[in-house]
């Protein structure tokens, strides 16, 4: 496949009006922002969320004589082709989820990647006091602050029928307390945003240069307008507008950001198919994973999220088993003695393992230089499969079923099953993730629940 460059649709607007549905341009430019062949490609980070807990006994691998000689469980069996690239963690406790406002789903969801309690609010759950959203930044955004500074998109949050509830149940990722990043559930809209509006390779045409200059003039004035307004505002209002302003400034710094052509950066097709209705769930998921992998292969972003459903999601997994006729969350409340439901929930989580494996395989299909010579994008990436609960019917937050995958550019030794003392705070894992991605964190989330990096990881 030829390297390519995508055209900013506005370039083609010219004076003639809005261009619609522009084709990709196969571009003749030389590879841009060329990396020395010897240097490793950048590190990437991905959240992969599935909800409502797992069936832990069917999830937990069987330990072998060493951490690297383990036998995959029934649910994780689909990961066999990539077993050497994963790390399965047993013993993680979400301590923050045991504290603060909200019910178990809400607390689990909001603290899963933030490691801190929810803020109080108006959303009433099944127990606890009413809660708002998460109480701090999520680990992917902390990582994006490190590795997402120069790319066209700081991060991409892609959803698969996550609902539009606008509550803590619906968000994986946060830039700060109460500042969620809503996932985009529409693959066509994601495609349009990421690929029809981006430049891959160097800016070498005057139309593009003029567009960047225009945008700079406009955003400079927008920023100045915020400055004019600031003195008139009270503290609460000012903090809101300051957050908005920070995002405008961030946009401005990325105006000249372009993607990088490379062996794995290929022209994706506009996602096609039916993306509406319960039955389209698998198709939406595949399209979103494909788009995220390609956005990363073209270095348009280095941080992403794939969020399946929402916490308390009610997808009906008819494609897994045609006799399933109830929502996922409703089923997750059934008791352990209900063998039929336990079997179906096992199959649902096994299906999610298949999707996780698909993502890993797609990342591994992109050849890339690594710290140790030629490898794949998976070697430079960490993917974290997370769930807001451990056991659905108990609404428990320990042990949390975490699976990591990818070599983190050499910072993560994979192919291991690691058993930690129960009650090891998962905040420690979040610290380690930041450090694998080049950070120097000593704590993350609520420091009361963190004792430093996860030892041995």
């Amino acid at each position, binding site marked *: 496949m030829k390297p390519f460059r995508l055209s900013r649709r506005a370039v083609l607007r010219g004076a003639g009006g809005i261009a619609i549905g522009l084709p990709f341009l196969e571009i003749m430019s030389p590879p841009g922002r060329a990396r020395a062949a010897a240097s490793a490609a950048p590190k990437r980070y991905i959240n992969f969320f599935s909800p409502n807990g797992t069936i832990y006994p069917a999830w937990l691998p069987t330990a072998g004589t060493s951490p690297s000689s383990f036998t995959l469980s029934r649910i994780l069996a689909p990961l066999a082709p990539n077993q050497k690239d994963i790390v399965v963690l047993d013993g993680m406790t979400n301590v923050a989820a045991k504290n603060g406002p909200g019910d178990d789903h809400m607390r689990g969801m909001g603290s899963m990647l933030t490691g801190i309690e929810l803020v109080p609010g108006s959303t009433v759950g099944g127990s606890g006091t009413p809660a708002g959203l998460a109480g701090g930044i999520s680990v992917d955004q902390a990582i994006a602050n490190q590795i997402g500074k120069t790319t066209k998109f700081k991060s991409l949050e892609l959803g698969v029928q996550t609902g*539009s509830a606008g509550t803590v149940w619906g968000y994986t990722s946060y830039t700060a307390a109460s500042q969620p990043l*809503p996932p985009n559930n529409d693959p066509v809209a994601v495609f349009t945003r990421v690929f029809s509006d981006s430049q891959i390779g160097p800016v070498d045409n005057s139309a593009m240069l003029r567009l960047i200059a225009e945008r700079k*003039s406009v955003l400079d004035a927008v920023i*100045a307008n915020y400055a004019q307004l600031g003195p008139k505002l009270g503290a609460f209002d000012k903090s809101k507008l300051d957050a908005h302003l920070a995002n405008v400034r961030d946009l401005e710094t990325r105006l000249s950001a372009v993607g990088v052509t490379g062996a794995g950066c290929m022209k994706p097709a506009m996602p096609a198919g039916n993306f509406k209705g319960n039955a389209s769930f698998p198709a939406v998921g595949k399209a979103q994973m494909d788009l995220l992998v390609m956005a990363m292969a073209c270095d348009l972003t280095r941080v992403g999220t794939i969020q399946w459903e929402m916490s308390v999601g009610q997808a009906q997994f008819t494609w897994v088993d045609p006799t399933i*006729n109830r929502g996922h969350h409703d089923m997750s409340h059934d008791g352990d003695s209900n063998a039929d439901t336990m079997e179906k929930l096992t199959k649902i989580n096994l299906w999610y393992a298949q999707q996780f494996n698909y993502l890993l395989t797609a990342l591994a299909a992109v050849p890339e230089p690594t710290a140790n010579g030629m490898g794949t994008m998976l070697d430079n990436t960490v993917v974290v499969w997370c769930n807001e609960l451990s056991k659905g019917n108990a609404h428990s937050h320990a042990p949390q079923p975490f699976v990591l995958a990818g070599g983190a550019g050499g910072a993560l030794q994979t192919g291991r099953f690691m058993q930690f003392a129960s009650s090891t705070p998962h905040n420690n894992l979040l610290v380690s993730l930041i450090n694998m991605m080049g950070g120097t964190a000593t704590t993350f989330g609520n420091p009361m629940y963190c004792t430093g990096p996860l030892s041995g990881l």
Partner: protein
Amino acid sequence: MSMLTPAQTAALCAATIDPGPAFVRRMTHLEYDNTIRDLLGTPTMVGEQFPPEEVRLGFDNNAAALSVSPGLAEQYLDAAETLATAAVTTNMASLVSCDPTTQGVDVCGQQFIAAFGQRAYRRPLSAADAALLKTVFDAGKATDFTTGVRLVIETILQSPQFLYRVEVGRAPVAGDPSIAVTDGSAPNPTKVVRLDDWEMASRLSYVLWGSMPDDQLFAAAAAGKLSTEVDIAAQAQRMLKDPKAHDMVADFHNQWLGLDVISTVEKDPTVFKTFTPTIAGLMEQETKMFLDDVVWNENGTLATIFTAPYTFVNAPLAQYYGIAGVTGSAFVKTPLDGTPRLGMLTQGGFLSEQAKTNQTSPVHRGKFVREQFLCQQLPQPPPNLQIVPPSLSPTLTTRQRFAQHSAAAACAGCHSLMDPLGLGFETFDGAGLYRATENGQPIDASGQVANADAELAGPFNGAVELEKKLGGSSTVQACLTTQWFRYAYGRSETDADSCSMATLATKFAAGGYKMQDLLAALTQTKAFLYRRVTPAVGSTGSAGGP
């Protein structure tokens, strides 16, 4: 809450003039689309594609919640470019009233900035506002005049003066009241001031239209005619006759009653053989048209929602329901005489949305009534509680299968508030069709309303009887008032709002609970007419404000 008499309301409001807290309000995505339509003259649905808002207290327009994520900032940029390009391409003549070739590029550019800027910022530009926009125009005019205009529009559409409603209020004077604020949202004591006329124009237009002011409101603001309750009430009456008010009320109904979800309802085709996605879409249209008609054509009361003896159907939906005599694809207002239906809660939309894919759900139906109409929030099921409806049975009725909810103590606490309400709808199946029997047994549609006011509490038989009770219930009247307060003012009610709430309740009651009276009353409360002076950050003034 118990209803105050008009005299009691007057006494309460004489004692306090506290308008409660007021936050800067960012446009919702719907308000963005509406405002673009009115500002640029081009209908758009671009805002509809923006990421969903956080929902608080059931509405997506809570001022304290509305934030701008990185993705939204990017979409504002993208939308500004697309919309500005379209505007200068197709609509230049209506945007720019001068001729740059004869009058000069700079003169014409400044005219455009002053005129368009005033409409977009919804107030006259300050010298600093105009100067800033001029720098952008100058950057663009190097290419050509049109580019200068386009860049000004792109700038405005991303600026806080456009995207937010920022209010300062009139400068405080000696006679302004000073109130004690004890909730920490403002200094104590704090001065209370009226809004200036431009700010009032925007309050009126966004509360009643979900959009920017029209020329008449702007003219009234310029003439200083938006300062008194009488002037404001006159504008409100004018504005309620505009179709834009219908759109605003429709959005309230959509959010309050979850109407937009009806068209996505899916059913098990082996159980509900005639239900199709098309029928779901028609059901959504039915309820939306019905509510619009109740408010505007009938000048209906709250009770009309529940007891109107008609609905809106077209031929396919009428055939689905088994209503005879309707032809064509257009919806027609159709009497319900001789049918078992009456009011909104016997329409397919509510009945099928609040049901399972293969059966009814007394739980969901009861929960919906209690949460949306009685404003009583019910908790989610606690852990370890099986959320499994009793198994389908070829012999038992739903009521018989659900008996265990009331029998099991762990369930009964909450389900006694839901199930006896929801079981009253059992003569309608999970897809909204009437049924006299279930599994060969006659339906028992008796129900019971626990924990409610005197008009509502007690036994009833069937959905129609329940609706008649709901229509006369003081709890439902107070609940609708609260819902409108939250939606219109973009915040939750506080202790400081007792006078404003009482004003709404009194004016709503005066004409027998007409919905239009409640809408007009929204412009007559202390919360609407006044604001607390907010000392700006860094101001060195006294606690009383700048």
